[in-house]
């Protein structure tokens, strides 16, 4: 029997960011599993707590930008070599004007790569959304914290959420193996 099949899930509803952050900190300090956090706005402090590592998207952005620079310069150089267009005695492959193409392609491909990297690493679009713990109010004016614990810890977790400032705590009945 897996550990998930012997666990219980609780959902805390919060009205304020600081109480949410406090609850996440307390849950992590007590080694309860934080399954998910819901918020209508980006909360950097909560994000830093649930995924403290640095995002790998930046490598995708860098690679994309580099490809854009090489591609943009390459495109300008190769087309100029194929279709010689001599302007005012300037060299056929001139770095000065080609930098513009290279710069624009760096930005374009870098931005597209960032979007794709973000979608891939965030596993978006998430096909199983809404999750069992999602509530419509989490897209409006409330914050949600979904915790998983052993069945004998339910009361302790409930107390922890309430002490942190949860307005309401739900014990979820989720088919085991739900997203974590």
């Amino acid at each position, binding site marked *: 029997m897996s550990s998930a099949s012997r666990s219980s899930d609780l959902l805390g509803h919060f009205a304020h960011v600081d109480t949410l952050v406090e609850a996440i900190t307390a849950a992590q300090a007590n080694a309860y599993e934080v399954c998910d956090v819901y918020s209508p706005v980006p909360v950097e402090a909560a994000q830093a707590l649930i995924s403290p590592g640095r995002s790998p998207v930046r490598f995708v952005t860098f690679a994309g930008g580099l490809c854009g620079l090489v591609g943009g310069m390459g495109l300008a150089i190769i087309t100029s070599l194929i279709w010689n267009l001599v302007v005012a005695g300037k060299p056929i492959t001139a770095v000065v004007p080609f930098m*513009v193409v290279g710069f624009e392609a760096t930005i374009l491909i870098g931005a597209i790569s960032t979007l794709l990297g973000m979608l891939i690493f965030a596993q978006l679009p998430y096909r199983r959304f809404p999750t069992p713990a999602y509530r419509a109010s989490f897209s409006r004016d409330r914050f949600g914290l979904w915790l998983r614990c052993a069945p004998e810890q339910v009361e302790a977790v409930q107390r922890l959420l309430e002490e942190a400032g949860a307005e309401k705590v739900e014990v979820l009945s989720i088919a085991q193996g739900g997203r974590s």
Partner: protein
Amino acid sequence: MKHAQLFADVLAMRDKVHSPRDKSVSLALGLCGAIGLLLAFAGGSPGAGWLALLVATTMTIGVAAVGVVFAAIFHITAARWGRPFQRFAEAGVALMPLGLICLLALVLGGHAWLPWLQVDHLTGGKHAWLVRGFWDVRVLLTLVCTYALSLTFVYYAWRRDFCLGEVRAAFTGRLGAWLGRGITDAEREMARCTRRLDVLAPAVIIVYALAFSFLAFDLIMALEPDWYSTLFGAWYFISHLFVGLAAIVLITTVLWRRLSLERFVSMPRQRDLATLLFAFCLVHMDFFWSQFLTIWYAHLPEFTFYLIDRTLDPALPYHHLTWPALAAFFFIPFGTLLFRRVKSSRLLLSAVAIIAISGVLLARFIEAAPALLTLDSPSVTGLFLPLAATALVALGVIGVAIPLYQRLLTSIPLMPLSDEVFLATQTHEEHP
């Protein structure tokens, strides 16, 4: 009261602005400036004195103006992240008297350094524009009008704070008494100040761009009376915005520990400031490149000589400075600010800011020097004295600016306490 602790913390900050070492640092820098002026005017390099004064003046008048421009930008965009930096930017107005004095010295000594006075035949209709008297009034009036508008903006921004009783009680000096005079209905007065700021903020930005474009044409571009570029003004005012932002980075770093700024500026906010510095580094280069590209493509002798003299000509020493200047104002800031570690470290960020400011200073030197200096040889050593004198005079200006700036900082609340946007950031702001 809702924000009692916040108010108490902010009002207590003014006592920590000064440090015992400030006076000696200021004196040492001032001494550097005096030595620089002496070297420049009596060092035997003709034109070096006016060159050093011109470069220092352009930097000073720019830094004095751009702080208010940033405050206006923060106001228009309701930038939550920028609020803790707002007062440090606005206090740049403390340098305005110094900038005006330097400009006045340049105007009074114009007959000794303005190269177009020696030109018999000015081309392109410039004979009507570059006329002594008209030029004097124009540069002084442009700067005075810009400063007057900026001061009006900061007056309303600070007066709004002085509508709060706690602020009026804490700042009872002359400036405080003037800012807080005649306030009977505080809420109504605060609303009036906010309405005035709404109107003045866009005006400050537009007038700054126009005025500093004209100052660029008159103070720097006119040094080569046969050369012109319509983009030169934009390149000049953008470079001052870049320098101003780098100066804000430096100031907050110096004052960080003294004022316990971590209470107001979280790490994400510091990175926001660094990201904006990176953005201005790109915009600055963009304006440079746009100008360079069109001159390079057109390849017309009446335009290219300006660039050739400063970047290529082996008969002149200035090409030795071109790459160091480009590296300092673009390549180094661009390459380093890509990294999160640099943006997160105040020390590294300050080092980048110093390099960027030095790069713009060097660019200004390269722009002005060929028209003002008379050099005997193309050797780079001939440039040593004028360059060293310019750097020393710039340090001297910083030495004079420090006490002026600090004195102003002790006369106003260091955070915009009447600003709803700032108060909102302090209520629910993240402080990891």
